């Protein structure tokens, strides 16, 4: 297909439709409302289900219900709305049904603001709902990548009977870029052997997240963990730039990652041998990749639009072998390439953080910046 | 003369709650204190004649433990 100009949010919605989305349940919230608005027109056109739910709580449980029938279903929201979905997500994970959720992140905590942020990383990747459950989390940094990952998200969710979240900051939702849409996939109702779609001509089925007997729950927890090992083995995705001869590497996902690319290019232009690693799957996280990189680079600079969340995952992979530095902007601010370039200069000059936790040194450095 | 009927109370399901007993219009039911079900309940039974097969016991039974029969050829209407 030829490239067309797409706005991030609308591209996400159309990509989902092309991937075979049969039902969307959502609730308006900036900066992702365009997804809901786009689908409020598009889904009925195609005779597919669209419901503006009474709340995000309602939406995620409608998703849960539809997911139990084996159709491709999704919801989308932004930070506060996603927080309301935590119980539902935990149930979906415990019931082992596939579901896709998009979080167009905004400044927080609380009501915060509607500007771009990446501060729900820990919620998406580590914490979130109660109980132990794995989930796949994809982090696009451009409209094309958002389109491709939306399609992938349905395939992965289905393949692993798992939640697949797509997290992006508000700016990816608002940006317009030329991008190529996939062909429209025909809707094929796969007859999954687990779906509760009516016991016509077969044994009845039950879908639930209850394992009232602890040993049974333990078995279930291990089944999920086993499946997660497969995901970790097969689904890690990332993009590397200038890493071959890099003496140190910047690590950033989503918009922070693409802003870093500009900074890295600028640094290269100055002859600084720096590379960039942009995780595309933040869960499973590319631990191995960073582990191996650590053998070759002498330091890492993690950049995020939060207070340093993925930062800990990088440190877990690096295991203290080389310095891991941090630079972030928060509260809805998108860093400019210049800021990251300045940090690259600092690292290139070996001016390491003095504190045990580099985020403390970063806070000290920021004092001047944020006060103005 | 009233129709003659009889019931079978399943030991698997009966929990000895006595709802059927208090509902039986003929007052021919009681708990069988001589027996315990596998779950440890005294099951209900008819202790004397007079059951008309009205199926009211089955209608009130929370555990669908009662099967009701009637000694007439044409099938009677279902309870409810």
């Amino acid at each position, binding site marked *: 297909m030829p490239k067309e100009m797409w706005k991030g949010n609308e591209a996400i919605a159309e990509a989902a439709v092309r991937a075979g989305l049969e039902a969307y349940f959502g609730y308006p919230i*900036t900066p992702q409302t365009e997804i809901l608005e786009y689908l409020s027109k598009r889904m009925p056109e195609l005779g597919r289900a669209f419901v503006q739910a009474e709340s995000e709580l309602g939406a995620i449980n409608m998703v849960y219900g539809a997911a139990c029938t084996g159709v491709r279903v999704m919801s989308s929201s932004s930070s506060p709305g996603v927080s309301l979905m935590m119980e539902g997500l935990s149930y979906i994970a415990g019931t082992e049904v596939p579901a896709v959720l998009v979080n167009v992140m905004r400044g927080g905590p609380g009501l915060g603001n509607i500007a771009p942020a990446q501060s729900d990383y820990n919620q998406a990747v580590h914490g979130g709902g109660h109980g132990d459950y794995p989930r796949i989390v994809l982090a696009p940094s451009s409209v094309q990548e958002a389109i491709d990952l939306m399609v992938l998200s349905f395939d992965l969710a289905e393949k692993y009977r798992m939640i697949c979240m797509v997290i992006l900051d508000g700016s990816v939702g*608002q940006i317009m870029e030329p991008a190529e849409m996939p062909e429209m996939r025909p809707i094929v109702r796969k007859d999954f052997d687990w779906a509760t779609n009516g016991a016509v001509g077969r044994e009845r089925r039950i879908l639930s997240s209850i394992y009232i007997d602890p040993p049974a729950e333990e078995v279930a927890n291990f089944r999920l963990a086993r499946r997660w090992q497969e995901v970790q083995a097969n689904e890690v995705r990332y993009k590397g730039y200038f890493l071959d001869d890099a003496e140190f590497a910047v690590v950033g996902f989503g918009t922070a990652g693409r802003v870093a690319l500009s900074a890295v290019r600028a640094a290269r232009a100055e002859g600084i041998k720096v590379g960039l690693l942009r995780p595309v799957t933040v869960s499973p996280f590319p631990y191995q990749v960073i582990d191996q990189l650590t053998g070759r680079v002498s330091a890492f600079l993690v950049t995020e639009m939060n207070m340093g969340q993925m930062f800990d995952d990088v440190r877990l992979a690096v295991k203290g072998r080389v310095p891991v530095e941090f630079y972030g902007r928060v509260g809805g601010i998108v860093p400019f390439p210049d800021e990251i370039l300045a940090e690259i200069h600092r690292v290139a000059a070996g001016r390491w953080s003095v504190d045990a936790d580099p985020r403390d040194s970063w806070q000290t450095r920021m004092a001047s910046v944020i006060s103005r | 003369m009233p129709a003659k009927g009889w019931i079978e109370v399943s030991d698997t399901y009966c929990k000895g709650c006595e709802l059927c007993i208090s509902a039986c219009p003929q007052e021919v039911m009681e708990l069988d204190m001589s027996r315990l079900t596998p779950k440890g309940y005294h099951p209900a039974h008819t202790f004397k004649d007079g059951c008309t097969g009205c199926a009211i016991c089955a209608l009130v039974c929370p555990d669908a433990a009662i099967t009701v029969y009637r000694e007439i050829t044409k099938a009677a209407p279902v309870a409810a």
Partner: protein
Amino acid sequence: MQKEILIAGFGGQGVLFAGQVLAYAAMDTGKIVTWIPSYGPEMRGGTANCTVVIADEEIGSPLVKNPPLAIALNLPSFDKYEELLAPGGTLIVNQSMVDRGAKRGDIHTIFVPCNEIAEEIGDKRLMNMVAVGALLTALTEVTVKDVEKALEGHLPARHKHLLPKNYEALKRGFEHAQKVPA
């Protein structure tokens, strides 16, 4: 090659569309491009702005602190972006809405009476196209023809009848800017 253009003005001045037209024009000539609006509280009333990046390789940041090219359609935008423009850059200013001259000597500030020109053409809404035309004198990667094609391709149907006037606006803006001694 990478060029960043920032366009700013009041809500109603067609800031976002002006940026989109540039983006479309660049895209149609095979360039890689990004268009990103400022969104959020400013939207209700207040000023709006958008940034267009045109390049021939994968674009990193869609935003830049110091753009080399900018259009300021009103005074607040002029005040803000005159400061931020990269040295040597070009700033198109809608003379009709500002009451002062340039402060910086290290950038090219081109004043264009966009409103007046637009009204001469017969539709003040074309003011943004006048400014775009002027900008093209500094944005060599995109020609007036490219933008005309983009307009043809992307102007909402109900405005198609305005195409000739849009072309006129572009041309007038371009010519006016050329006349200004750089």
